[in-house]
């Protein structure tokens, strides 16, 4: 069964701006999905439908097979945890601990359970010891992690991250990607990530959807998607740099196959050189 499914989902802002145009998107439990698209493609708008923050103008959103309505909307929000692009949008409590406890508190859990969940999620994102720190004195990367911990504490089945690496330095980005992959592998959480940094896509997704002007215009494995070169360029994106390099070599007549991660490209080039 699909854990998230949208059927002909359309969203029009203020009766004018068509941000989503008949989107059919599905996610199965345990998948690692990346949603790529240029600025304004509609990624964030789509994400906000997954837990009922935005209401469809037409079409519907199904969580575990059930359409979201006023009765089950809290369940939907418990199932799908949404981490915003800008951690400052999400963190408002005066200490890290209070912020992470905010979600579990709203679920009406007991003090003990809340304590435990806060401790565990801070451990998962490796922020133990930060409990009493004030969020606005943290670095960008640490804030991002607090935002993720706040969602993890609600134990969602799906983790939806809007541009998780934006504003992070390469070191921070690598650590965050590793963290996301671990949560998928060890906790079995479905992860859906929106980004326009194509180079990281092969590292954190088995399936890629391309959005452009509110439509999903491509859906497949990273290999498949990045082979449809034209599609990518048309949407203001580009191939991962590795793939660009190999393509340039192809044009010069070198018999290489396009690869997307560093390791694969190395092996492919070694094959040719030797």
């Amino acid at each position, binding site marked *: 069964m699909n854990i998230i499914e949208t059927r002909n989902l359309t969203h029009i802002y*203020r009766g004018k701006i068509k941000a989503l145009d008949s989107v059919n998107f599905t996610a199965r439990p345990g998948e690692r999905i990346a949603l790529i698209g240029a600025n304004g493609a509609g990624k964030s708008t789509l994400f*906000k439908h997954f*837990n009922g*923050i935005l209401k469809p103008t037409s079409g519907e959103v199904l969580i575990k097979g059930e359409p979201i309505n006023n009765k089950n909307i*809290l369940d939907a*929000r*418990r199932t799908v*945890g*949404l981490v*915003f692009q*800008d951690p*400052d*949008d*999400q963190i*408002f*409590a*005066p200490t890290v601990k*209070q912020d992470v406890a*905010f*979600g579990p*508190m*709203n*679920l*009406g859990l007991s003090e003990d359970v809340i304590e435990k969940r806060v401790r565990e999620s801070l451990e998962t994102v490796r922020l133990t010891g930060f409990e009493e720190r004030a969020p*606005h004195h943290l670095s960008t990367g640490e804030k991002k992690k607090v935002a993720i911990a*706040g*969602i993890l504490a*609600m134990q969602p089945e799906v983790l939806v991250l809007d541009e998780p690496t934006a504003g992070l330095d390469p070191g921070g980005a690598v650590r965050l990607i590793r963290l996301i992959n671990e949560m998928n592998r060890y906790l079995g959480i479905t992860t859906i990530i929106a980004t326009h940094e194509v180079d990281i896509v092969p590292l954190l997704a088995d399936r890629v959807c391309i959005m452009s002007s509110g439509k999903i215009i491509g859906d497949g494995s990273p290999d498949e998607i990045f082979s449809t070169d034209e599609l990518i360029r048309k949407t203001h994106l580009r191939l991962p740099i590795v793939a660009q390099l190999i393509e340039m070599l192809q044009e010069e007549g070198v018999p290489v196959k396009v690869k997307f991660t560093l390791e694969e490209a190395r092996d492919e080039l070694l094959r040719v050189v030797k």
Partner: protein
Amino acid sequence: MHISLGEIERETYRKTPIHGIDGRIKILMALAIIVYAVALPRMDTMNFMKFGLLELYLIVLMLSARLDFSYIAFRFAMALPFGFGLAVFQPFLRQPFTTDFTVIYTLPMGLEITREGTLFGAIVFAKFIVCITAVILISSTMSMSELVASARRLGLPRELALLFTMMVRYIFVFWNILGRIRTAQKTRCFDIWNKNVPRRWKLTQVGYTISSLFIRSYEQGERTYQSMLCRGYNADAHVYVGKKKLGTVDFFFLILTLGIIILAQMYITSLIVIPLSK
């Protein structure tokens, strides 16, 4: 029916002759109508014709500006409550500036409705409606920024102009921030009416939301101030408004408005007074 702050300027984007009138003229028009309406005597049946004429004029302007009906209705609904509440009391009160009261109806518990009270209530309410209509008209046909620029051209001191210009800009920024905080809270299942959660904790969260918004607005202020310094800002700086000449249409509307006011005062009085006195 909801109109968010983000949408409140929606109507000002239309292009009609009314939208095109120079901002200064619109401000003066509204000012003249409001001052005239407020200045009318408080106990005079003849007032209603005058209010009627003014209101009719304003509504004609609104119609020619092709303003959205539900939007206007909402704006009125938003402005009415306190004024309406005050007016509704009037029939039961003995206004200090009148001495003779005619009781026209007696309710149980000795509540008396007087003709004078009712008249005063109705007049005060009519004044209020005319004023509100004028404000809604100008604020729906020009954006906040245009309004500030026009007031500046009319001689608003530059400190106040700068204050308002920046305030208007950041209202929209903070409106978005507040919306995002709210969304974030919803994402984590926050509901103010949630019974499973202690009330005290909820109130504290509201306090945090407010302080969070306040701190952000303060920090934003600091950063913006720095960026203004980067562009040579100093205490004597001006806000750029640019030159703008008044056209024939602008003067036409100014004169039309003044004409309507004079008509209200003169013609309607004579219309009623003369036949009556014959």
